[in-house]
């Protein structure tokens, strides 16, 4: 299987939204309209009463996994520029070995 997918080690996503702008630049998208990725913030109280903030990059309808860049041997624009290095782009097969231990992660596939 050589289908590409995106693994998101979101526990380390700081919510800086750099991925959104990297995508905008790559496709010269119009500001204010849907880009390929949008970061969602969740603020939760854990059972202990502790505040916990989770950021999740959500890959939208507009995302094409940067097919053009990947063809040239580059990583998608958001993957390269992610300040927290939480996006891993690879084939589904290779990603199996890259799933982080001891914490949850998300896998986005193209379907």
């Amino acid at each position, binding site marked *: 299987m050589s289908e590409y997918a995106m693994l998101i080690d979101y526990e*380390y996503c*700081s*919510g*800086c*939204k*750099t991925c*959104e*702008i*990297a995508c*905008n*630049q*790559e496709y010269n998208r*119009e*500001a*204010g309209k849907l880009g390929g990725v949008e970061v969602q913030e969740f*603020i939760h*109280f854990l059972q202990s009463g*502790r*505040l*916990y*903030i989770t*950021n999740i990059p959500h890959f939208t309808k507009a995302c094409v996994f940067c097919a053009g860049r990947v063809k040239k041997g580059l990583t998608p*624009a958001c993957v*390269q*520029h*992610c*300040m*927290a*290095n939480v996006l891993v782009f690879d084939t589904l097969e290779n990603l199996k070995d890259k799933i982080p231990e001891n914490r949850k992660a998300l896998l986005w596939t193209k379907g």
Partner: protein
Amino acid sequence: MKNDGVKIIKTTTWSPGPGCHGGCGILVHVKDDKVIKVEGDPDHPWNQGRLCSRCLSMTQYMYHKDRLTKPLKRVGERGQGKFEPISWDEAFDLIEKKMKQIRQDHGPESMIFHQGTGRDIGGWISMLAYAYGSPNWMFGLSGISCYTPRLMMMSITQGDFAVVDAAQWHEKRYDDPEYEIPETVTIWGQNLPATCPDGFFGHWYVDLMKRGTRLMVIDPRCTWIASRAKLWLQLRPGTDAALALGFIHVMIKENLVNMTFIEKWTNAPFLVRTDTPEPILLRETDLAPSGKSTNFVAHDPVSNEFVIWDSDNQTYSRKDTTPSMDGEFTISLTDGTRIPVKTVWRMYKENVEEYTPQKVSRITWVPEDKIVQGARMYAKSSPSALHWGLPIDTIPSTIPTSQAVNHLWCLSGNLDNPGGNAIARYAYDVVTYPYHSGGSILSLPPEVAEKRIGINDYGPIKDFRAWAQPDKVLEQIFTKKPYEIKGMWIQTANPLACTGMEPQKWHKAIKQLDFTVCVDLFMTPTAMLCDVILPAATFLEKDSLKAWWVPLQAIKKVVEVDECKSDIEINLELSKRFMKDFPYDNTRDLFDSLLKSAGITYQQLCDNTWMIPPKGHSSRPYYRHEKGLLRADGKPGFRTPSGKIELFSSWLEKWQLAPMPYHEEPPYSPVSTPDLFKEYPLILTTGRRMGPFFHSEHRQIPWLRAQQKEPVLEIHPDTAQKYGITHGQKVCVENWLGKITVKALVTPVIHPDIVMAEHGWWFPEKEGAEPSLFGVWDVNVNQLIPMGHEGKGGLGSPIKSMLCKVYKAKG
């Protein structure tokens, strides 16, 4: 050059554009002399391919329709917004004529050279001020409350600056065998992932977390990084000194300090006179008329005699002594008087005795058990690194606060060790941003230097930093005493929207001057008031260099945009016009001269793009105090008057300031102004960082502005409910100085008794002409913060610890 006509150029960032303190390596894609894309450089050790939102938006910034692209001359009234384009020759001629007239009629000191936050401007604006002949080079933030207090305190305590070692001195970064991952990093008052702090890359802490570093975060807000910390201490703004002293109290009580390091490297064994009204260090001159006042005295426990510490030779008069650390003695002065003395260490312990966890908890609102836990976590970790932020500067008691926090790494021995707080010097000692007038490109004769505003009011202003004191400058513009201020050169600054507290006063001050120039990239509320506006280049349109702290790197001119010129070229051209025999013909000459200590030319630097000093160089860690790499004489020790880390500071003693740290209440607080607090029952803190914007910049960049459209006030859900405020509603934030109207962001990340207002807001899309000035008066929170509340050394101001009330806005 690729076959699609795109050229890719490797360069590095600093200031105009992303606006930040720079450091990242980038690959710039150029087609037909136009930048079409900017990407991170995977080969650069600083960012390793990553790049922030602001730099990724460079194309929108550079080619923005509102970019200033030609010099402008005011043709209407000040503030009316009527300007006409003129040529560079006309602009330079006009500026030369007007400023020379002021110099001739009123003296060069009547011209202020006003910069914003430190980035690449320090070297070039001081060059222009000194070429013109004015000592009044100034950063306009009240109390110079941005890094300068911390830098000053580090400089006088340990002789050098220090920053967290995140392996930035190693090409291979975290994988370098010499490096150690910090066991704990304490982040004191900074939201790192949302900021690019001075000489640092915020996300390095995410890299370290992944490699096992635990975090302690000290912040009134639960930021994302605070929510990921092992320990989060939610302190009351402005009480940082008390918390640090509480840590020190616990560390001493529980014997968690590094006594071997303290005995060897600090002035803890020195003796202090207690017969004087305030304790002062005992000096050799007290014991013998022939002695030196720079030498100190300690007690030798074996012989029970006193020994002299020779600061020049860095030795005790009895070579084999291990001086007493803890004790009280009686000693005879030259006139035979017997006086009581104590060791610094005894005095130091007495000084922190009162800061029990119980008392500190009352002051800071941090629970007692967490104070103890925090002290243990910091002190028991090895290596343990401490990263501090702006809140340490933005309080009038910044000097004792910086000192107390600085002492944490001195008492635990985490100084210049791998993974601790490494001593930070300019790479290869190349000075692109001078602190003292001595390090600047030009110098001033003493009789001119003495006219610098604030120099006679404050010791640290006189001796540490070459800036005029901004609160005193503003005062002098109105009082005209001891001399009149006639003009202002404003470059990289927007005091009406950003650096100016009580901006109403700056507005009035700037408008009443005879002649003002603003150098900027976009029209701003401040530029609207000026007589001449010069269009500056972004970092992709200029040649420059950076050495802050590491690597030493080149910033290369990639393209030109219309008639925009670099700050350096602008200042160099005018310097030539103002100064006979100005020593540099062009920027290359200037850069080559600055690079002398690195032994290379600017061309060689450009060929390398970036360079990290080799192992063994005095601008690269580690343990340089042991190797004799810090002091000019090559002896082990530090660059302080005694050569020791001065826990009891001889500099503070000289400036008649308390030589040891203490807590002081902010000037407006529930404790210091309880009556005012009844009327204004919320603590107003400001300045939290916003990812898409650098201070007052970037509001006109579409991609960035789309991430946040307008300013918000963070308010806790319980507090919001109490005042009938709902999320997203417009609220008024008001105190006795002023009022703003912003949107409520109801969030549990903030303490219920504190509200956080954003700074730097104005609306480039709104009417620029007065009275609107791009809507700045509706939203600029600095209207609620006073000028003239600088701390005892002329440093610090209450920017993050004011009082206010909040209520629903009408309509």
